[in-house]
């Protein structure tokens, strides 16, 4: 089981190890810092690729050492972990390029990149966690690493947002600690085992098991931005663009969703959850979040807030897929984990470019933006259409599987829900596209602002990935293929 732990440690070290080095670098050593960042990111992508290959062939790397009698700090690389690491590694590389360009002359860059790589390290840790205890360790580390990034600008408003963010996420962390302790007391172990460990406990004390499930979902729901606990996400948009791009669209939010997947599949086991009658409430909560998120998104004039609310609703697709408790729905959920990440990061980077180059922050100011920044807006439009669910693109694939999953399990109401939410998506994305392309810029033809390649290229690359994920869905190493591989493993036990 623990063939070679060195690979895992190396992956972790590329970001956790790099952070202190970056912190120590003086502010002026910008070139050296960028070099370190980029090399580390590329090494990580390569390592993750190699790990994915090995795991593909059935190898299971792992590492664990006992902290307390019976309590282990365990890392394990199962296919589900690989899915999430691949996403964060690739996107970290792209976002590093983007943020180097974005923060050209800004202050405190050493601190920014230090915490940036700490965050990704934590995200990788969250993915690799072999039991709920290790998951909790990296979950809290993620909170601590993201707080300084949210308040990076250091203004009073940023600090207020930071305080709200901290209250929500640390409270979530505390509740997760309580949940982990409850699990440890009830089941004697907190390990993630395909098929779950709570089967017998649920049979013995159904009430305690239900309570534990609610506590865990509540704790993870904070980061997965389920409805009552989502308020921190739009407020945290005060952070600079790369932070909202990578962290609030990919790392932090996905960590919550990933946690829910782990809890439902590998702590409780899908059958136990169904027996405890908890699948329906979870699905309902997800549905409410999807609709609520979309409705709120429509009313937002600020671009980043609109994208934030859209993230709130999109992440709940994953929770919905998990709650539908069917293999096909699970594939849809996991695929959406990847697709939504790719789509949302493109849009956030595009929004960043608009703010950086044209000073456009609000939807009402987006008239004629398409001509000013053709490349960026092309990527934005592509991602928006994919998000709405246009057939050949990635969004459609995951929604299709979710619908199939719902039907397979007899939850017919899923179809109207998905259609409705797609309609809502259209309602808040299409006006933006319309303003960008079919309205001409209000004042005279402004000189075409030049933004460096570092800002222009990344959205295009991610948009291409979105396209690829949609078109070549059945290619050997496409996200969809990999999720089928995971779900097949998950349901074999």
């Amino acid at each position, binding site marked *: 089981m623990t063939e070679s732990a060195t690979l895992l440690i190396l992956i972790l070290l590329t970001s956790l190890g790099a952070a202190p080095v970056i912190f120590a670098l003086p502010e002026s050593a910008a070139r050296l810092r960028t070099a370190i960042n980029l090399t580390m990111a590329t090494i990580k992508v390569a390592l993750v690729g190699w790990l994915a290959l090995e795991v593909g062939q059935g190898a299971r790397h792992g590492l664990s050492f006992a902290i307390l009698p019976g309590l282990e700090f365990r890392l394990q690389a199962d296919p589900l972990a690989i899915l999430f690491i691949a996403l964060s590694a690739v996107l970290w590389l792209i976002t590093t390029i983007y943020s180097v360009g974005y923060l050209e002359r800004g202050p405190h860059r050493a601190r920014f990149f230090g915490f940036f790589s700490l965050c990704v390290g934590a995200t990788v840790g969250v993915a690799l966690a072999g039991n709920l205890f290790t998951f909790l360790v990296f979950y809290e580390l993620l909170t601590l690493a993201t707080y300084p990034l949210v308040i990076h600008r250091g203004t*009073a408003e940023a600090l207020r947002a930071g305080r709200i963010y901290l209250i929500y996420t640390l409270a979530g962390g505390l509740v997760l600690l309580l949940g982990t302790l409850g699990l440890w007391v009830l089941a004697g172990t907190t390990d993630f085992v395909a098929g779950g460990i709570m089967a017998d406990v649920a049979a013995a004390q159904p009430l305690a098991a239900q309570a534990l499930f609610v506590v865990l979902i509540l704790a993870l729901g904070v980061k997965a931005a389920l409805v009552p606990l989502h308020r921190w996400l739009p407020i945290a948009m005060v952070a600079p663009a790369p932070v909202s791009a990578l962290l609030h669209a990919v790392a932090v939010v996905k960590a919550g969703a990933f946690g829910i997947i782990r809890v439902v599949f590998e702590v409780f086991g899908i059958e136990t959850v169904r027996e405890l009658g908890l699948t329906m409430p979870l699905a309902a909560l997800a549905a409410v979040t999807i609709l609520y998120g979309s409705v709120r998104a429509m009313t937002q004039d600020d671009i980043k807030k609109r994208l934030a609310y859209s993230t709130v609703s999109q992440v709940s697709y994953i929770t919905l897929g998990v709650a539908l408790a069917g293999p096909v729905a699970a594939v849809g959920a996991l695929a959406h984990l990847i697709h939504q990440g790719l789509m949302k990061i493109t849009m956030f980077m595009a929004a960043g470019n608009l703010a950086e180059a044209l000073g456009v922050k609000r939807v009402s100011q987006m008239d004629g933006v398409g001509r000013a920044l053709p490349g960026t807006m092309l990527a934005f439009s592509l991602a928006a259409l994919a998000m709405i669910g246009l057939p050949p693109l990635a969004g459609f694939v995951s929604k299709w599987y979710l619908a199939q999953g719902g039907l397979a399990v007899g939850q017919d109401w899923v179809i109207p829900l998905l259609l409705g939410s797609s309609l809502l998506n259209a309602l808040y994305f299409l006006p933006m596209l319309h303003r960008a392309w079919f309205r001409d810029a209000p004042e005279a033809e402004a000189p075409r602002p030049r933004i460096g390649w570092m800002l222009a290229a990344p959205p295009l690359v991610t948009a291409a990935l979105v396209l690829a994920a949609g078109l070549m869905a059945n290619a050997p190493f496409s996200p969809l293929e990999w999720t089928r591989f995971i779900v097949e493993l998950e349901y074999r036990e």
Partner: protein
Amino acid sequence: MTGPDWLTLSIILPLFGAVAAFILPRAAAGLGLTTVAATTLCVLMMADQVAALGAVTVPLGGWGAPLGIELRADGLSVAMLALTGMVGLLVSVSAIDAFAGDRTARQRQYFWPLWLLLLSGLNGVYLGTDLFNLYVMIEIIALAAVGLTVLGGTREALRAGLDYVYASILGALLFLLGVGLIYLQLGRLDFAGVIAAPPSAAMTAALAVMFVGLALKTALFPLHVWLPAAHANAAAPASALLSGLVVKGALYIVLRLAGYMPALTEDILTLIGLMGAGAVIWGGIQALRAERLKLLVAWSTVAQIGLIFVALARAGERGLSDSWKAAALLILAHGIAKAAMFLAAGRIKDEIGHDRIRDLDRSPIRPTLAQVTFALAAISLIGLPPSLGFIGKWQLMEGAMMAGYWHWVAITMIGTLFSVAYFSRVLAGFLRFDRVRGGPLAEHHGWSGADAAPLILASAAVLLGLAAGPIIAFIDLGAGGAMP
């Protein structure tokens, strides 16, 4: 054995160091540091002796337990000695820098003899098994600690020092009265005698008086009034020693007695827990209202000590045989983290010039290394993973949950929330840049060699959580019934 054993050496060596530092004031710093290093070496040698043989007992003067005094090193005592050695060494390194200027020549001259006497007293407490001997050791610690408190020479420090003297003398005398009453009952004063004692009303009364004395010395909630002023007004290395190590001596004795007290019934434990809970809440409230950084850190000591007593009472009487381990872990975690935090606070005050929390974000100079140390120490004190504090709280809550005492779990959660609240007041001050006045922002300006020691301590506090397994295994060595 060819020469004096490690146990006596670890007590007498700092004594010789103190004498040398007192006689040769100019060479005090060098002598002091070498002595602390040598003592830590002694402790390490003792540690592997204990690891090999289990508990090691040295009958001083060759007279055996009831008549003479015995030194005993088991897992817990060596763990505390290691804590004192490690924290002491790093505080000493930081003190060399803190008192380097000529303005602080007098403080430099007197810091070392007092600190080494304190070290000798602490090592004596951790190795002693005779109740009266513990009383004498407590007095040495008290006197040296008062000396360190008033090292600054300011009026507030002296007034706090005076209150501290009264509290510690009264505590010691209550302890002495308890020792007297126990001698009246048993006719012997060593731990073995106390264990074997049949529970009786007089025995409970004696142990109760001793506990009140010790509660006064550890500043447990209703008797905590003297601590915040004393720790806040002392010089940085001194307050690190006071908060990090001095309080631990009395806590260790409480731990030892709690292990053997036949009379520690359920309701006494609940009372202790309630006092601890009071400390957690009151300490938290006061820390939120504290104006100055060091006062906030001092109030957080009051809260953390309360939590340690809650850990002792977490699983009631049945769980006591296991609760003391959770308390011991919390003591170790708090010792390391609090010493690092006080050193960091001292560094920040030196760099910025003041330690008013409200104006932390106004200064252009940002000693980021010291601020990072403060943040790391805060992580361990709040109890976030992977710090040792987290493992301590984990054990506390786990024990309480197993025994069904949910109120202690709630108290720990409230304590954690309070600590998050008052530490984020400070961290927000570090990370805010829009109200900077007087000169350009200098991010790397405040860095200096003096930050190394606190940073090592703070990162040790955070990373030691991963090594909790071996630590707990070590604490278990020689403990339990084997105690003579």
